[in-house]
């Protein structure tokens, strides 16, 4: 009974050939593109559509495209090719305006350096090697240098008033300063929402739910139309700053919910252990709870950051000169009217680069943090 095959003769089976191609490119094609009738039909149809679309797109965007026009605004050549070829001349001609707005032409190296500084700041903040207390110092110094470069007035740089700023630096300023202030605010609100003190809890709940229930536009309108009514006479706050405050309040409410998720996900034992050690509330929060809770929610935080980076484009509606507004203004000039598609594609590419980098970063970070936890 111990061995059921004992004594039985092996049953002869038909000889089978080794399967053809279970690896290699042809096998890959068979499994992934042509695994059945339906799959083959879909693949062929899609391939046909992609090839024809791609050819007409390449024709429009590259082969028939016009890259420069004589005199800087003789756009007749572009008008003749409308619908057949893209008019990239509008970008060639207007890219300085789209990127830097009405900033004095000779001084535009300053906003350029500002943009590079911002990108450097993001890269440094993304590297885990720099996740230390000194990072806060780096941020303060960089933001100060950025302010200095934009305003000028010292070291031989002429003063540039805020009304002349525009384009990409405004988008980066709104999103970066917005997050720099909204993030601490959101931590306080998230802690307040989990607080045992009823009055504080209620204030935080009302703030978060109210802001999350209305569109950002209504807050921006409030900042641009209602805010001047709130202030005593004679006191006037700049429009950019008012929009910045609205964005901070908006971002704070959304980030607070992300942070709260982290606080809730932290095992109760951590809170109890900290209490058992006799730590005060702030010691417990700063040394035990927040470092773990924030680490857990970094990927969703980055996703929320991407959302805000895109949402800063809404300031177009209240007339602040960010990247999108600059692009929209660039095609108001009669010579360049009707070339919106090219300009929007250019701006979309800029937004895409920033957001795609952030989303890839968030994905890789998520993978890293998950492996460590297991």
């Amino acid at each position, binding site marked *: 009974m111990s061995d059921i095959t004992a004594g039985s003769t092996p049953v002869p089976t038909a000889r089978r050939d080794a399967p053809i191609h279970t690896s290699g490119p042809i096998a890959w094609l068979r499994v992934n593109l042509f695994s059945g009738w339906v799959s083959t039909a879909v693949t062929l149809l899609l391939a046909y559509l992609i090839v024809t679309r791609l050819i007409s797109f390449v024709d429009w965007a590259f082969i028939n495209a016009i890259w420069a026009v004589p005199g800087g605004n003789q756009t007749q050549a572009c008008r003749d090719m409308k619908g057949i070829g893209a008019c990239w001349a509008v970008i060639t001609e207007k890219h300085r305006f789209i990127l830097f707005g009405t900033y004095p032409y000779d001084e535009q190296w300053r906003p350029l350096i500002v943009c590079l500084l911002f990108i450097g700041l993001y890269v440094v903040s993304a590297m885990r090697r720099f996740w230390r207390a000194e990072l806060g110092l780096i941020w303060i110094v960089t933001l100060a240098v950025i302010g200095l470069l934009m305003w000028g007035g010292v070291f031989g740089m002429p003063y540039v008033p805020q009304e002349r700023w525009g384009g990409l630096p405004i988008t980066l300023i709104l999103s970066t300063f917005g997050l720099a202030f909204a993030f601490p605010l959101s931590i306080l609100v998230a802690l307040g929402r989990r607080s045992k003190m009823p009055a504080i809890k209620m204030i935080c709940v009302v703030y978060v739910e109210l802001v999350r229930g209305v*569109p*950002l*536009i*209504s807050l921006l309108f409030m900042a641009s139309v209602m805010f001047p009514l709130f202030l*005593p006479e004679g006191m006037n706050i700049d429009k950019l700053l008012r929009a910045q405050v609205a964005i901070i309040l908006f971002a704070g409410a959304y980030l607070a919910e992300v942070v709260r998720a982290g606080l809730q996900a932290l095992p109760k034992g951590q809170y109890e252990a900290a209490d058992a050690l006799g730590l005060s509330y702030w010691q417990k929060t700063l040394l035990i709870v927040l470092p773990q809770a924030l680490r857990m929610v970094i990927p969703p935080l980055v996703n929320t950051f991407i959302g805000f980076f*895109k949402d800063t*484009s809404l300031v177009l*509606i209240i007339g602040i000169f960010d990247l999108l507004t600059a692009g929209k203004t660039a095609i108001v000039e009669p010579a360049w009217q009707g070339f919106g598609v090219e300009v929007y594609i250019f701006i979309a590419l800029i937004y895409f680069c920033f957001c795609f980098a952030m989303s890839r970063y968030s994905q890789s970070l998520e993978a890293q943090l998950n492996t460590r936890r297991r």
Partner: protein
Amino acid sequence: MSSTVDPRLLRAPPKKGIRLSWADERFRAIIWQVLIVGAIAYVLWWLIGNTQRNLEVRRIATGFGFLDREAGLPIGESLIPYTPRDTYFRALSVGALNTLHVAVIGVVLATIFGTLIGVARLSKNWLVGRIAAIYVEVVRDVPLLLQLLFWYTLLQGLPGPRQSLNPVPGVFLSNRGLKLPFIQWETAHSAALGVFVLGCIALWGVAWQLRQRQYADGQPRALWPWGLGLLVGLPIVVWAVLGAPFAANTPVLRGFNFAGGVSVSPEYFALLLGLVTYTAAFIAEIVRAGILAVHQGQWEAAQALGLHRGQVLKRIVLPQALRVIVPPMTSQFLNLTKNSSLAVAIGYQDIVSIANTTLNQTGQAIEGIAIIMGVYLTISLSISLFMNWYNARIALVER
């Protein structure tokens, strides 16, 4: 059993009064709350005082009295009869209805389209999966406002009505918007529609009845003959009895524009297109995550029980995936509704656009913004309540 418990543990902790000392936690809590609430109240009082003074200086009367005045603002498209002679209240109602109009249709289309993309991304066909992935990545990483402007510019760049694109007979796409043929609506159609709605209710009752009988004898019964009869057969019979009217109302080029048919304005079309494509990318990711969250073992166990593929999807996989999908889907619906406020940038007259014009005409900034916020809070809360109810219905019943 009680003898094993230390009697000292059964005693309630001694009640202590609040000591007026910084060392008492409750005392500290009260002081903190008084301080913070006081500070917030002071700031609010200061702001309200400033506002009142500013309003007096600018001679703006507060209150909602302006709602009864004649608006005098033209509105391009409206679901209810409206003329510029009507009041501000009616104008704002038109705006709120326009917001709801685009939000409701947008939510339905985005759900359908997003689910398709999400399933396509999980397709075994590599090409289909790749295209869906690229779509999601590209659409998610470009601001919605930019996409709306892009679509609107594209639609405006189309040829005029005389040279309009005509992809399918009867459908015209020009810079005046989309024109679609529609049947000439008559009583018979209304009656058929009414019977269809009644049929839906009846079908629900039949399904319940069949389920009860299956519980009693374990015999599954087919529902589809009932569905076919109640939802298709009966409306057709009613329509035929009433004379089977059928006349297509096709758009015809007359002069410089079209007459007849149903028209979709370029503003509405661009807004709907932008909202649906943008939100669909997010919904696709939610659907994908929901399907992936159902463990492979669930499929295998269901197949081992002898269920066929459709039954596995309907009875085993979907109910579990929905639990993961519904909560984030709710916030996407809310996002779509709030994002419809971007209509103001391309000239679709939703509540934000009309309230903005109103506050520019009357100077009633506070009331105008309060109206915008009130409308959106109402819509948001209604969607939240409905989705919470739905979520509670499909949630895991735990002991």
